[in-house]
């Protein structure tokens, strides 16, 4: 017998579709559901304060509440179960549901699947329907869920300093709409963030029709659209370059961080990794040349890296382009102009020649990229060079984008200056915080009549605004976005707005004065119009279900690049490469790897997520090169303030104490702690956006300094003429990694590709076990899948119990492709309910992340006590290795950590008494201890103990994954290989099997959280007792090695050694990776040279 769920009518038929999510609003029309939601998500004070956490989440049925005093017996408190009064049809209690949506971020959207439990989104995954990303995500996407449950988000709109009801805001918008319709929009200016939302663009067109005089301006502090603008100009139509690194054998990046900070980083990383992955000697491997000023993730992956100030990159770009043109017999006029422009520049010609030769040799399989901040001439020259290489249409395609005419902030400011703006409507963004310092927001506020602000947070911009209209999270919104390749993606709500907020589209529609303002209707219209002539409902249903609008990506432009127009852009002289000194520094403003431009400033996961390169958390720093540090120390007022310690290799007291320096650009200054960062251009100082917010939530408060205070509108991404000055103060930095050198230990094993070709066992000829093979004696030659179950386990004296499980879980991590982007770190945090601990506790070393990405530098010198300028970066994600002979298990006195039948090193939190012996005895140091009750206590009251506030914020409770225990204080925790996912897969398989013995999970049925997030697909997980499983194949590769294998703890996680692919023709070629050199120097000081060479 089937129950009939009452749903509001126009969509009842659509709702019958078994899998997709129609509209929460409509389900919500039913009184019972409304009631449930009202009780569930009241604004302000919550009635759910006495809620028992997990059941609250786990049980679909609303909530559990202790029935307080009304206990019927004295044996235990009585609990009440509240069932759904009317169960929504597609909801199965206790099972997660996944819905497609997308996360808008700076114009583009990331296609996602939201995992919801009881209609609460708890985790974001990538949407595999979108092929370029293949279901992968990045760091901010993973963390975005926490913003939804941020208690500091704007919960109410404000008007004239008072809380405003929904209707008051509606009235305000209607009033504005009437007012400006009469004035043809004169006096109205809209300052919006970038967005490619088709619906928003449609609304903009309506706006332009109805308010022809209104100003529409788009501003982003980090603007990635310059290549697009240049290309559009050159081609005479809206166009942008779209890269396909999977086809690129040679890549030259000119200050472009295409793997790190780029709107299309997920697809880039994935494709780049595909072309880099080597499964056996003889496989092809791409080669990356990088010229950059800052040390970025892209630079970390480079096979040849050149440190160069951003402002000097132009000359190199021209030289490269000229070299390519010369060798490919390209446009000689352009070549001549380029060569003329660099005639006076000092260049490392040998480096450029080596690189260009290689690019040209690979022709259409090469690609050159220029950073988005580089000049138009550079962009144009690079397009021309790519064309000359034949790369256009292969590794890079020029695609037609949509018209997107927005005025620049400069133009807007002109109008504000002229008093032409009466109402400044700020749609998202945070200009008060991140406008360049020469535009004073205070003055703007004074000059315009009123500022109306729509935003997710009540921030710096809201402070001076007449009205703050509370925004809603993308997981609460209807909307649409475009992926970087143009594919249209839906934004669907997973949950009703938790607080009184407005949808961006609705606000815009009301402002325009449209009849239809329901965002759902607006999106429905937009999408169905694009597919006119088809069944509207079906189109839309498929759109929502798949999460992508098929065949909506940008089309490639066949027309070739007009080189004449390119040469017109080339200046007569390229920007200088010299003139730098410690009194004339370059400043490079970069997006923070975690909090971006500050929009994630109040996101605890991101704040605590260590920067992949500096490993700093909770703040930014003034990054300077080691050479600059040494030079600056000459000016240090007293030796204790010296930046370079006697031995910077170690931080003696475990705390990085940095002098606070003042960075001066023009007449503006900021103060910030310095951090010595190898790999920077010698006189380039790097500062990151996103910190120093003056009005933010409790998490972001007081973190770092605001680099916008020294950023000018004419040079928003880098500038020259800066200087640094000691202030005499110091600051303790929350750096999670104190030591940067591998100390010549074979931890990350690296080899050059050509050496690996010659000697495929090269990853096994280093490390202790290479000369103590006895350790691994008995089963050394046994096939992997047998080794997993039948276990003589090396040279152990005693017999081992056999692991009898049907599956034997294992993991492999490919170090060749890991960029260190941190997506896995936050994916794990989100999946496994890992708490944050706050800056103070990170300084003490108590961060809780189950995966950490170790970052080592190698400089290839024997005495590596002083960090060098030129280093190779190696990244290694380290999580619990699930050792078969786990040293942690042996020492646990209460059997709280033992092995299960399937080879997992399981951790029973509820049995743990917290001796911490296991953490001591873990050679990988991956166990994390709950020193305080991170979940139940306020992070600023940890030391108050019972005197502090107790209890988890209701909103945070809603984010927690109900399938994972929230740990209490005093217990140990660690990576579980996502045991909840394994168990759930096993249970599903058993439910399917019923009375058959088909209980073995097919390979690839599920992914663990880090694996699922990893944009480079560098993590593989599966059953190693199955020789056909993907992970077994990975582990059977030549590169596979065990971290600290000599200990014979037999980890189930193995690493695929890192391959580098340097070009022997390059001047900076080394026959061995630098870390390998250091290993030989340390272990074979006498004979290392001969070894390194053979």
């Amino acid at each position, binding site marked *: 017998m089937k129950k009939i769920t009452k749903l509001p009518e126009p969509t009842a038929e659509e709702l019958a579709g078994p899998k997709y999510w129609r509209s929460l609003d409509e389900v919500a029309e039913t009184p019972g559901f409304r009631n449930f939601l009202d009780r569930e998500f009241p604004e302000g004070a919550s009635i759910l304060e006495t809620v028992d956490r997990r059941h609250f989440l786990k049980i679909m049925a609303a909530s559990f509440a202790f029935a307080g005093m009304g206990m019927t017996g004295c044996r235990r408190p009585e609990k009440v179960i509240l069932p759904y009064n009317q169960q929504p049809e597609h909801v199965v209690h206790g099972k997660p549901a996944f819905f497609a949506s997308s996360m808008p971020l700076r114009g583009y959207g990331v296609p996602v699947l939201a995992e919801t439990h009881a209609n609460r989104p708890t985790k974001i995954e990538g949407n595999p329907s979108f092929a370029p990303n293949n279901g992968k995500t990045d760091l901010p996407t993973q963390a975005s869920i926490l913003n939804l449950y941020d208690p500091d988000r704007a919960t109410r709109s404000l008007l004239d300093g008072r809380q405003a009801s929904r209707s008051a805001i509606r009235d305000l918008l209607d009033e504005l709409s009437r007012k400006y319709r009469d004035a043809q929009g004169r006096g109205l200016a809209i300052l919006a963030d970038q967005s490619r939302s088709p619906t928003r663009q449609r609304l903009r067109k309506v706006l332009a029709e109805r308010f022809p005089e209104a100003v529409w301006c788009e501003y982003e502090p980090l603007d990635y659209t310059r290549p697009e603008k240049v290309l559009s100009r050159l081609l005479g139509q809206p166009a942008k370059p779209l890269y396909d690194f999977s086809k690129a054998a040679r890549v030259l990046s000119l200050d472009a961080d295409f793997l790190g900070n780029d709107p299309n980083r997920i697809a880039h990383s994935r494709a780049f990794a595909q072309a880099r992955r080597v499964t056996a000697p003889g496989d092809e491997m791409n080669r990356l040349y990088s010229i950059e000023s800052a040390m970025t993730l892209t630079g970390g992956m480079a096979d040849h890296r050149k440190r160069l100030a951003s402002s000097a990159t132009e000359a190199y770009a021209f030289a490269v382009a000229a070299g390519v043109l010369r060798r490919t017999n390209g446009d000689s006029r352009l070549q001549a102009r380029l060569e003329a422009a660099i005639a006076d520049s000092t260049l490392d010609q040998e480096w450029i020649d080596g690189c260009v030769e290689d690019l040209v040799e690979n022709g259409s399989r090469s690609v050159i990229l220029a950073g988005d901040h580089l000049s138009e001439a550079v962009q144009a020259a690079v397009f021309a060079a790519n064309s000359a290489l034949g790369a256009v249409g292969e590794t890079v395609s020029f695609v037609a984008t949509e018209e997107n005419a927005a005025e620049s902030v400069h133009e807007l400011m002109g109008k504000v200056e002229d008093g032409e703006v009466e109402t400044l409507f700020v749609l998202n963004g945070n200009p008060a915080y991140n406008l360049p310092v020469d535009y004073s927001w205070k003055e703007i506020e004074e000059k315009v009549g009123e500022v109306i602000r729509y935003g997710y947070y009540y921030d710096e911009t809201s402070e001076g605004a007449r009205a703050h209209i509370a925004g809603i999270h993308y997981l609460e919104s209807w909307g649409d976005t475009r992926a970087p390749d143009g594919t249209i993606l839906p934004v669907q709500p997973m949950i009703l707005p938790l607080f009184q907020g407005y949808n961006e589209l609705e606000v815009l529609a009301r402002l325009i004065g449209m009849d239809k303002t329901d965002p759902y209707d607006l999106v429905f219209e937009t999408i169905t119009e694009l597919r006119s002539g088809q069944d509207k409902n079906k189109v839309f249903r498929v759109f929502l279900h798949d999460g992508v609008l098929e065949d909506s990506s940008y089309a490639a432009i066949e027309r070739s690049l007009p080189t004449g127009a390119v040469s017109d852009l080339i200046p007569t002289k390229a920007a200088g490469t010299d003139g730098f000194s410690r009194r004339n520094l370059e400043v490079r403003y970069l997006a923070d790897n975690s909090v971006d431009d500050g929009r994630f400033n109040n996101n605890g996961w991101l704040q605590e997520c260590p920067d992949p390169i500096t490993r700093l958390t909770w703040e930014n720093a003034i990054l300077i090169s080691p050479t600059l540090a040494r030079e600056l120390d000459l000016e240090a007022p007293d030796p204790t303030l010296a930046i370079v310690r006697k031995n910077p290799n170690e931080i003696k007291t475990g705390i990085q104490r940095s002098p606070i320096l003042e960075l001066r650009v023009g007449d503006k200054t900021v103060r910030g702690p310095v951090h010595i960062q190898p790999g920077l251009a010698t006189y380039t100082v790097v500062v990151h956006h996103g910190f120093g917010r003056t009005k933010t939530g409790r998490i972001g408060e007081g973190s770092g300094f605001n680099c916008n205070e020294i950023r000018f509108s004419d040079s928003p991404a880098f500038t020259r003429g800066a200087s640094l000055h000691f202030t005499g103060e110091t600051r303790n930095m929350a750096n999670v990694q104190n030591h940067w050198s591998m100390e010549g230990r074979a931890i990350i094993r690296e080899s050059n590709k050509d050496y690996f070709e010659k000697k495929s066992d090269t990853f096994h000829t280093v490390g202790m076990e290479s000369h103590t093979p006895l350790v691994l004696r008995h089963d050394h030659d046994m096939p992997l899948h047998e080794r997993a179950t039948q276990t003589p386990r090396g040279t152990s004296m*005693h017999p*081992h*119990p056999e692991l009898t499980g049907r599956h034997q879980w294992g993991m492999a991590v490919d170090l060749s492709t890991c960029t260190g982007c941190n997506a896995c770190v936050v994916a794990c945090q989100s999946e496994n309910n890992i708490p944050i601990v706050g800056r103070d506790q990170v300084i003490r070393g108590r961060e809780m992340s189950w995966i950490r990405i170790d970052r080592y530098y190698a400089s290839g010198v024997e005495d590596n006590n002083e960090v060098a300028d030129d280093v190779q970066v190696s990244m290694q994600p380290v999580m619990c290795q699930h050792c078969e*002979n*786990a*040293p942690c298990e042996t020492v646990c006195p209460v059997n709280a950590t*033992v*092995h299960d039948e399937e080879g997992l090193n399981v951790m029973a939190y509820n049995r743990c008494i917290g001796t911490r012996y296991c953490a001591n005895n873990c050679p990988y140091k991956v166990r994390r201890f709950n020193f305080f009750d991170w979940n139940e206590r306020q992070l600023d009251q940890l030391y108050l103990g019972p005197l502090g506030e107790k209890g988890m914020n209701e909103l945070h409770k809603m984010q927690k994954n109900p399938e994972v225990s929230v740990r209490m204080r005093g217990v140990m925790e660690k990576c579980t290989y996502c045991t909840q996912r394994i168990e759930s897969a096993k249970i599903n398989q058993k439910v399917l099997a019923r009375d058959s013995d088909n209980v073995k999970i097919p390979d690839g049925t599920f992914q663990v959280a880090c694996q699922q997030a990893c944009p480079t697909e560098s993590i593989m997980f599966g059953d190693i007792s199955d020789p056909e499983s993907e992970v077994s194949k990975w582990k059977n590769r030549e590169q596979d090695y065990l971290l600290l294998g000599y200990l014979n703890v037999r980890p189930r996680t193995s690493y695929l050694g890192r391959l580098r692919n340097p070009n022997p023709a390059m001047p900076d070629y080394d026959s061995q990776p630098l870390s390998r050199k250091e290993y030989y120097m340390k272990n074979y000081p006498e004979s290392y040279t001969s070894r390194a060479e053979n």
Partner: protein
Amino acid sequence: MSTSSENNGETFALIAEFENPGAIMAAAEKVRDAGFKNWDVITPFPVHGMDQAMGLSRSKIPIVAFCGGVAGFTLGMSMVYYMNKVDYPLVVGGMPYFSPVFPFPVAYELTILFAAIGSIISMFLFNSLPMHHHPTLNYEQIEKASNDRYFIVIESSDPNFDETKTPDLLKDIGGSNIGKLKD
């Protein structure tokens, strides 16, 4: 005669004082030779050779201690065997469920614990201690017994005991201050 006058109970024993270890030793040998069974020597410290002088056999306590030790060791080993191998075998660090090696420290400590406790308990049992009330302790000169004087106590329950002859014997063997102990 200096027995306590208030105590009108039956005579429990006769007591005699001696000056030094040598005297008591010689006296004890004589009492032993006189065939007494229920008698005792009270000394402030164990006098070397007194056991032979009194004709006492070797103490049985080592046997109890040995049994305790064996019990402790067996308990330790079998406890670990049962808990970690029979009742709930768990794979811990790839170690065998049971091996004689890892339970050894536990079994070893239990051996010592049981042996020690066994010997102490048996010492109390064999000595019928604690016995807070004892006629000897009512002797008013008893303070000397734990200082620097030595006593011989001959109980009236001894078959050889004689109200008149025994005090004489005590006097003969050098005892002074001969008194009666009443119950």
